């Protein structure tokens, strides 16, 4: 049903979104082109320098030039099966495969190397390579299925211990290639695992009912609404003024609540990230989302964190604000940068 909502929403706004996407894409393309030119110039200068192998920094996003190459050559990809990578965790005890199936309904298994364990499952090729994958990703129903399957596996692994989730569509040709990755980037994975060990991510969202908030805001502002004028035109203008006044007071209060809630949670958490407000067509929320925060919390402190959310909820409920907490999530929002 989320899918249905999504389709409807996408259909309604497709023109506007495409225009916006196009603008962004152009900007992106310009950047890529510039980077590629700079790189080409640099490479030309260093043409004689050895060891500029393509896998010298595999954990980083590859430079634009490399990024685009494989996409233009879908046929170069393997036929048969490739390995979809979900997450990397520590090896040894607890490194069992998860009990659920993953993407494409395939069984998930582990690849171990150098004290690390990767969770992988086979995906059929060429369906999961190059152009076909790109096309599939544009099918919202397909995307939802894959995204949920990916998250399900990462989530179950996370229940057993710290794991570093990989972005959707990280695919290797074979288990051996995954082993190579674990060997070459072992240190980095180990550091990342340590940085999130014993911690979990909690999502806290703040919603308001804008009308109720405005009413409360005006009542609490201590100011009086503008005087109604004389005659029909005057009354109309006065109403516009009052509406604007109400809206401004509502906005001010909303901003204050969102900042206060975030500040309190941030103080308490090890780390915090604020995301964009979600699209209601997708999330299905009612009211207005004022805060979409992710908080990194020590696992043994999550109960206290929940109480804090409860306390804040109690404080702002009468103003028409509502807090929603969900978790624990694997710390997706906190492993993106170098520890």
């Amino acid at each position, binding site marked *: 049903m989320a899918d249905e909502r999504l389709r409807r929403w996408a259909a309604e706004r497709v023109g506007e979104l495409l225009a916006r996407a196009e603008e962004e894409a152009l900007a992106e393309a310009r950047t890529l082109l510039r980077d590629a030119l700079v790189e080409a110039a640099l490479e030309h200068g260093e043409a004689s320098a050895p060891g500029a192998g393509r896998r010298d920094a595999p954990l980083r996003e590859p430079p634009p030039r490399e990024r685009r190459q494989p996409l233009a050559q879908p046929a170069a990809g393997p036929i048969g099966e490739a390995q979809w990578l979900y997450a990397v965790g520590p090896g040894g005890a607890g490194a069992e495969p998860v009990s*659920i199936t993953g993407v494409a309904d395939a069984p998930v298994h582990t690849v171990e190397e150098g004290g690390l364990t990767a969770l992988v499952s086979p995906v059929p090729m060429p369906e999961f390579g190059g152009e076909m994958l790109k096309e599939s990703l544009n099918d919202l129903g397909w995307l939802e299925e894959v995204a949920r399957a990916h998250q399900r596996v990462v989530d179950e692994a996370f229940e057993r211990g710290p794991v570093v989730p990989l972005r959707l569509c990280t695919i290797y040709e074979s288990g051996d290639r995954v082993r190579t990755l674990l060997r070459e980037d072992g240190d980095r994975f180990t550091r990342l695992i340590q940085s999130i060990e014993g911690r979990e991510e909690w999502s806290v969202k703040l919603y308001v009912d804008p009308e109720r908030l405005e009413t409360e805001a005006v009542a609490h502002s201590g100011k009086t609404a503008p005087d109604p004028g004389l*005659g029909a035109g005057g009354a109309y203008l006065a109403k516009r003024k009052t509406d604007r006044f109400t809206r401004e007071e509502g906005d001010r209060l909303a901003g204050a609540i969102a900042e206060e809630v975030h500040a309190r949670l941030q103080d308490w958490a090890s780390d915090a990230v604020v*995301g964009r407000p*979600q699209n209601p067509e*997708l999330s299905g929320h009612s009211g207005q989302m004022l805060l979409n925060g992710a908080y990194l919390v020590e696992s043994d402190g999550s109960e206290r964190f929940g109480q804090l959310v409860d306390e804040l909820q109690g404080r702002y409920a009468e103003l028409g604000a509502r807090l929603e907490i969900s978790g624990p999530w694997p710390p997706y929002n906190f492993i993106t940068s170098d520890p």
Partner: protein
Amino acid sequence: MADDSPLPSQRASALPSQRPGALPGRPEQANLADILERVLDKGIVIAGDIQINLLDIELLTIKLRLIIASVERAQEMGIDWWESDPGLSSGAKSRDSDKLEKENRELRERLERLEQRLEIGQDEQAASGQGGGDGG
């Protein structure tokens, strides 16, 4: 620990997880927006063998469709802290969308002014036609 959750009522709906003890199907309940903003935008990026560049135009379109909420209203309210997230915005992107937001806002304001003028005109006509009756 989630067994004696202090917030059962609020946690009930969007709960992606409830440790310990895996409840199969539990993440199904998680809201799709929560999942997509994580698996498409977060998580470590490494260069796999089969590369699908998440900045590709097609996928960028998906991300726009799915992740970007109606941020306009929030920005009007001065809530724009996500703009500082480098994962979500590059300078060029936010400049572009700022421009769009501004243009939208200006257009809306013009429309409001026009509507206002139009309605006042009608009100005054009606009022004078009825000999000054209370038109409220």
